[in-house]
């Protein structure tokens, strides 16, 4: 994606602005900044805010692609601002266009209201629900079982996928790729004891069957994760969720049997 044709040393940053207290609708501001080697998009925003317009509002924190705060829409595509070299996103005239993440109400400038995003996340119960009998020592998983989770735990909940999904654009009730990827992670985790219930939730009206395999989520994800394939897997599992839950119970019995649990009070003084 690097644009080799832009050779200058200053860049024009077009940023969408909107202050609900003052503005009726959003508009674009243009700023010019000096381009250094290694300047990221987030660096540019910081320079604008500290030296040109202190009212520019955006979310940021870690600046190294782990907190997920700085996801925004750059030249029409969602990505993190902190790990993208500014030079790679400038057109021939040295311009870049920065907008907030789509499909969510704007609070101010580049900050959007992510309440629905978080509610859908909570909806899939993104925590482990262990069985009644828990082994005394660690709950062991085979390398194959870890592999099956397909690195879903790398998700930083930045929202780039959610805001790139046209199904979200058309239907705000759709659970969303972010939450469905988390549901996938929990459903395939052998330590979780309620996969049947989880599958029933995601196979409902707003869940995995609303995905239209548009694939924007894969394009947008800064961690190169694959919510589409996770959703496809959940679709197959949802059709035989009782069998899957029975298999899970068997798997967990073997865990309890193979790892010693406390059966009697320790004796001795």
């Amino acid at each position: 994606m690097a644009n080799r044709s832009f050779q200058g040393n200053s860049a024009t940053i077009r940023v969408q602005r909107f202050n609900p207290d003052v503005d009726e609708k959003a508009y674009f501001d243009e700023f010019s900044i000096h381009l250094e080697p290694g300047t990221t998009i987030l660096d540019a925003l910081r320079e604008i805010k500290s030296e040109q317009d202190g009212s520019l509002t955006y979310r940021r924190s870690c600046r190294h692609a782990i907190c997920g705060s700085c996801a925004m829409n750059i030249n029409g595509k969602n990505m993190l601002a902190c790990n993208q070299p500014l030079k790679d996103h400038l057109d021939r005239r040295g311009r870049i266009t920065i907008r907030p993440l789509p499909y969510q109400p704007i609070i101010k400038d580049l900050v959007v209201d992510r309440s629905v995003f978080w509610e859908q996340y909570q909806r899939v119960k993104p925590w482990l629900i262990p069985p009644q009998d828990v082994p005394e020592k660690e709950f062991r998983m085979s390398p194959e079982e870890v592999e099956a989770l397909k690195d879903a735990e790398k998700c930083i909940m930045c929202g780039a996928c959610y805001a790139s999904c046209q199904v979200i654009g058309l239907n705000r009730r759709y659970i969303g790729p972010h939450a469905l990827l988390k549901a996938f992670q929990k459903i395939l985790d052998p330590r979780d004891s309620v996969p049947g219930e989880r599958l029933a939730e995601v196979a409902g009206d707003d869940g995995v069957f609303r995905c239209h395999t548009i694939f924007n989520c894969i394009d947008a994800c800064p961690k190169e994760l694959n919510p589409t394939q996770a959703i496809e897997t959940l679709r197959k599992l949802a059709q035989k969720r009782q069998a899957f839950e029975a298999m899970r119970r068997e798997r967990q019995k073997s865990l309890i049997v193979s790892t010693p649990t406390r059966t009697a009070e320790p004796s001795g003084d």
Partner: protein
Amino acid sequence: MYKSTGFVSFFLRRFTGLVLVLYLGVHMWVIGAATKGAETFNTRLELFESPVLKILEILLLAAVLYHGFDGIRLIIVHYFDVTDYRKSLFYAAFATSALLTIVGGIPLLLYALGMWS
């Protein structure tokens, strides 16, 4: 609008689907005239002989072919992990539809221009 091959496919699939439903209505109106006798049937069928409608028939062909091949693409997407070649698969479906539209459309066009009987 978030631009991607996935979105183009999503939109065109729905658009061609709508076109096909509307066409089905018209088709049933024409063919249904078979129950009303030869004269009515022939009259209705002749309505579609005009050059303009023959050109529209090429667009109909495009819609049918696109919807069909993109449908096959979708079935492949549902049964296999196509992540690595998701865009190529779309281009292949689109190119096949376009090619067959041209192949099938040339006789229709020639007919419309009166160079084919």
